[in-house]
């Protein structure tokens, strides 16, 4: 098999002390490069490097106090002897190169001379989902300049720095610093890679640009309508009480739509901003769905629509962001009520699915509305895509609801499935991997 089995690379490095020293030195070297990214990162790196260096010298972690004898010289006045403090037995776990890397809050990877990943800490695995220890580094990225940089460090023993621009699964820009780790008999045995994610900064700029472009484009139509009504009310319809009532009603709903549009644009920008960060919280699905259905009771009632929940499962925990997950269910159920038939039935079903070794929870929202023609289905998640512009506008839609859903689902490593038949109805289902540690 050409994919070599994982070798215990870290164990091959000479005595853990030296290997730590090597890594600490590497981290310290990189700290200089990282200084540009902000003091906090630098300090953590420096502190850890210091800790590791101390460990190498045998100064910390285990304590270095001398023999516990009373060394106080005799004195004419009897004073209680002053004792050196007793060494406190260390309760710190064995400090290994792994534990050092795992403690680093920045994505850190060790690659050996055959381009095989020897260790990758949690932040690194969060950045590169496909990455795994014992696998080729190409699973992180096949960016040509990255491989070239690793090659260069291995041959020259100098540090390298590359900027990576990844486009899938989410767009991100990473600043990678690579430095050599000394091998057993001298020479470079491996490369230490420390990554800094610049996506946030770039995304912020992009987000502002998109936001302004979309907002100005989408707000133009309702604004023009408002101005038209105002002019009419000031002019020809000045004394027409019936027209005034009607126009004010339209103006009210147009302005509501404008503020919804701004809300949705903000939500979309927020999820896009965080697209590259795995969610950190925990969400219980069944209760969340129940709460969302309750919160939409008013809207459902106005449509004469009945919303029922069919949850054949107990609590289901996922790793997720509560507000985002709520928004997914709100958007899907609201759509089903809005686009379904008046007096129709919306069924929300929560169920388990197994796929290979992994367990997922599935929430399906089914309506008995008019359905969606096949050619529109794959496009619905694109921002501002609507099957029928007029109907969406009349119903107060912004064309962003499903784009938000898609983004949230992707960030949660989930799936969105749309199934629809004209004249029968539609099912929008989201699936999330269960947090199996729960």
């Amino acid at each position, binding site marked *: 098999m050409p994919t070599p089995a994982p070798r215990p690379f870290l164990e091959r490095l000479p005595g853990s002390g030296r290997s730590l020293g090597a890594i600490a030195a590497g981290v310290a070297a990189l700290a200089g490069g990282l200084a540009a990214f902000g003091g906090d990162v630098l300090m953590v790196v420096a502190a850890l490097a210091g800790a590791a260096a101390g460990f190498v010298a045998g100064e910390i972690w285990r304590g270095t106090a001398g023999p516990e004898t009373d060394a106080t010289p005799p004195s004419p006045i009897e004073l209680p002897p002053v004792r050196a403090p007793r060494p406190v037995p260390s309760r710190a776990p064995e400090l290994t190169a792994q534990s050092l890397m795992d403690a680093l809050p920045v994505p850190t990877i060790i690659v050996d001379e055959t381009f095989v990943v020897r260790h990758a800490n949690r932040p690194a695995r969060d950045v590169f989902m496909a990455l795994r220890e014992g696998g*080729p580094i190409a699973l992180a990225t096949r960016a*040509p300049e990255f491989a070239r940089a690793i090659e260069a460090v291995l041959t020259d023993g100098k540090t390298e720095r590359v900027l990576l621009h990844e486009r899938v699964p989410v767009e991100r820009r990473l600043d990678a610093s690579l430095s050599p780790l000394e091998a057993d008999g001298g020479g470079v045995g491996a490369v230490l890679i420390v990554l800094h994610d610049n996506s946030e900064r770039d995304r912020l700029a992009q987000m502002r640009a998109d936001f302004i472009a979309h907002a100005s484009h989408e707000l133009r139509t309702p604004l023009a309508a408002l101005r038209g009504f105002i002019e009419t009310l000031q002019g020809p319809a000045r004394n027409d009480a019936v027209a005034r009532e009607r126009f004010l009603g339209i103006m009210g709903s147009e302005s509501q739509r404008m503020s919804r549009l701004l809300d949705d644009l903000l939500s979309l920008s927020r999820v896009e901003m965080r697209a590259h960060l795995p969610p950190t919280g925990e969400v219980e699905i069944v209760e969340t769905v129940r709460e969302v259905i309750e919160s939409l009771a008013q809207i459902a009632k106005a449509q004469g629509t009945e919303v029922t929940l069919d949850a054949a499962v107990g609590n289901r925990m996922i790793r997720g962001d509560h507000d985002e997950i709520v928004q997914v269910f709100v958007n899907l159920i609201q759509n089903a009520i809005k686009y379904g038939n008046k007096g129709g039935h919306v069924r929300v079903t929560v169920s388990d699915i197994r796929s290979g070794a992994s367990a997922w929870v599935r929430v399906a929202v089914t309506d008995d509305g008019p359905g969606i023609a096949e050619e529109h289905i*794959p496009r619905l998640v694109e921002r501002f895509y609507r099957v029928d512009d007029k109907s969406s506008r009349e119903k107060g839609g912004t064309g962003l609801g499903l784009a938000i859903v898609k983004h949230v689902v992707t960030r949660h490593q989930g799936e969105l499935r749309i199934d629809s038949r004209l004249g029968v109805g539609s099912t929008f289902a989201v699936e999330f991997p269960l947090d199996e540690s729960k």
Partner: protein
Amino acid sequence: MEHTVKSYEAELVQLDQKLSQMGGLVERLLGDAFASLERRDPRLASEAIAADQAIDSLQKEIEELAISMIARRQPMAGDLRLIVSTLKVAGDLERIGDLAKNIAKRSLAVASESRPQSLILGLRHMAELAMRSLKNVLDAYMTRDDEKALKVWRADTDIDALYNSVFRELLTYMMEDPRNIGLCTHLLFGAKNIERIGDHATNIAETIHYMVRGKPLVDDRPKGDKTSVTLIDNDPGERN
């Protein structure tokens, strides 16, 4: 004996590394080509077009290495399958490179024309799916992950469905206003190129299945493309 075995292993690793390198170049080319179309960036387009050469020469290197390995080592079942599969994957990657290069060329042609946002969003959506498939199928190849390859294989219907939808939308624009025809034709070929890239990713998925399982995928290929073949299957600029 030990030596021979070892360097044979080393050659297999080298073959994998070359393919991974080639994959990286193709991924970059596809990303740049679409970005150049979306952002109307002629400089990026020219870079993308130039990058295709490196891909072609890597394919030749892979071919030479693979053929010489077969000739010198006369590998048995599993290894032979592996080497032949690498050859096939390299062929599909080279085609993907050509198709991507073609998108970059079209982006040069339409750089100055204004176009409806919704069309570009549709194409972007297609390109994202294609890039994801390409990444996943290359990852699947490197880890010999049959499951992951099958996922890519199944996902091709999504690209086809999108293509059909974008195709319709483009036709609508062309019929609405004949002045749109020039731009829309270029975008149509661009969309077709992406759809074909999806097909090549599907081919790679099939190759992985064969490589891992030792038998070909028996189901019918997922086929969702229902547009007429007469109009767009013969893009003259595609093969060069």
